[in-house]
């Protein structure tokens, strides 16, 4: 049975990775998950300098989901390379690093510093929780094109992935731009801008007022976007948004995903990544599927 998939030059032993920001730097979950078994580990978004993130409260639970406004708290590029990366390199898995800059130059500095050191770089052009964050790029198609073109030019060895926002003007058009510019893969969906209010204090539940919605609640939206995007482009899609079970993962694969990432579900069940890999195997066995690649975009309609 073959579970191996290919994202650009990166070969993953199975299609399961973690969604950026929900799995720390990998180490946090090693008590529960043998990282060697994952297709890839995607780490928390990294910026040039360390960031403190937004003031608390930063998370709030909503029906079948949660909103977060972490605001990209992270150790910064240097600490990441010096302290976090060596540990991760000790595992037989792929490393995907999510990056976020304020300017095109910052993105380029990040990508060229990481090029070759990690298997893939995921451009976060869509973080809803940082003022000068990528949102700007994701809401202007031509700005996005310029950004990813320049970043593309800085990368020689690692695979380049652009993470798209469900709040962007048109996610399919943006995916097409990625393909045109020569990006190897897109990942989707990032969280959906959302908010909640405490009616007794009349204040927002998050200090940042709005945050990003994730979790099972958004899965039907993510599946639809992946399906629409898959029909429009030929580069692989790493899909995420509300995956909790192997069924959910397969749903995304049938919709057109080559790999899938688990986010919020790690909080619900810390071994969920392994459970899903196991569940995918079982499904393939029952349905007599030899190669996971034959399921990609396999929706019959």
């Amino acid at each position, binding site marked *: 049975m073959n579970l191996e998939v290919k994202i650009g030059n990166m070969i993953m032993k199975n299609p399961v990775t973690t969604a950026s*920001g*929900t*799995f*720390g730097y990998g180490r*946090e*979950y090693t*008590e529960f998950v043998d990282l060697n078994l994952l297709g890839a580990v995607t780490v*928390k978004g990294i910026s040039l300098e360390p960031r*403190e*993130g937004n*003031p*608390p*409260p*930063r*998370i*709030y*639970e909503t*029906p*079948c*989901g*949660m909103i*977060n406004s*972490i605001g990209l*708290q992270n150790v910064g590029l240097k600490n990441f390379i010096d302290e976090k990366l060596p540990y991760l390199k000790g595992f037989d898995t792929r490393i995907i690093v999510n990056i976020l800059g304020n300017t095109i130059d910052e993105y380029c500095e990040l990508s060229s510093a990481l090029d070759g050191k990690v298997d893939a770089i995921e451009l976060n052009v869509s973080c809803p929780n940082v003022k000068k964050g990528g949102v700007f790029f994701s809401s202007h198609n031509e700005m996005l094109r310029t950004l990813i073109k320049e970043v593309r030019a800085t990368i020689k060895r690692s695979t380049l992935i652009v993470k798209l926002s469900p709040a962007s003007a048109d996610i399919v058009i943006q995916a097409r731009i990625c393909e045109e510019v020569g990006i190897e893969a897109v990942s989707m969906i990032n969280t959906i801008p959302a908010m909640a209010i405490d009616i007794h204090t009349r204040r927002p539940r998050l200090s940042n007022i709005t945050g990003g919605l994730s*979790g*099972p609640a958004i899965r039907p939206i993510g599946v639809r976007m992946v399906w629409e995007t898959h029909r429009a482009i030929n580069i692989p899609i790493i899909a995420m948004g509300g995956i*909790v079970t192997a069924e959910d993962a397969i749903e995304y694969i049938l919709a057109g995903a080559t790999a899938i990432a688990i986010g*919020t579900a*790690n*909080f*619900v*069940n*810390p071994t969920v990544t392994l459970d899903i890999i196991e569940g995918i195997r079982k499904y393939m066995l029952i349905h007599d599927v030899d190669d996971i690649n034959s399921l990609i975009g396999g929706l019959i309609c």
Partner: protein
Amino acid sequence: MEVIDNREITDRVFILRLRLTESVLKPEPGQFYLLRPDTGYDPLLGRPFSAFRWNSDWIEFLIRKTGRGTALLSKFRPGDHIRLLGPLGRTFPSPSPHKTPVLLAGGIGMASVYSLLLNRKGDYIFIYGAKSAPELLLTEDIKPLVRELYLCTDDGSMGFQGNVIEFFKKFVKEAPSHSIVVYACGPREMTEPLMKLLRTYNIEGYISLEERMACGLGACMGCAKHTKRGMKRVCMEGPVFNIEEL
């Protein structure tokens, strides 16, 4: 984990006892677990609760119904299963023999300091406050374990009339401050002024703080708390903080 017992002790508070299997580590006082009622994805996240009492076979949580998650947990019955993640976070340090340990508990914060009382030897003074007398829980259980027990109620229906902080202010004026160490857990309205007070009197103190959590493992950065040394995660660097850090 399997529910062994679930008992209401007031109309808003219950004690949930779960079977401890070998796969689950025993806690240290001050540590907590994330409990998730496993019915669907709503509610989605685990809820943090301090380890209250435990032995080798079971562990108990003292839980106050505040919202949907706790209401659901109150309905679990023997034989049901609940997902348990933990023990998590840092423990209260053991009291030094040279100082009198003073425990301060506000409301359901009692659960966490009570576990200290049960598990670490000491000549404890316990100051325990709640809105009114019926909300002062298990005081008969506390009495034999402490040297002195002071009860406070906002409405004066039992003990000192006023909150724990007001009582403590009076208390420190009489006690020489360097000879006590404080362990506290309670609502924000109690812990915030307490921090200031302890700093003013230069008293050693450990406070268990609360913040909303998702992962409980230090991965999501959801439970951040601003400290002197930058953002700290309540689930990892806490929930018990030395007030010097805060």
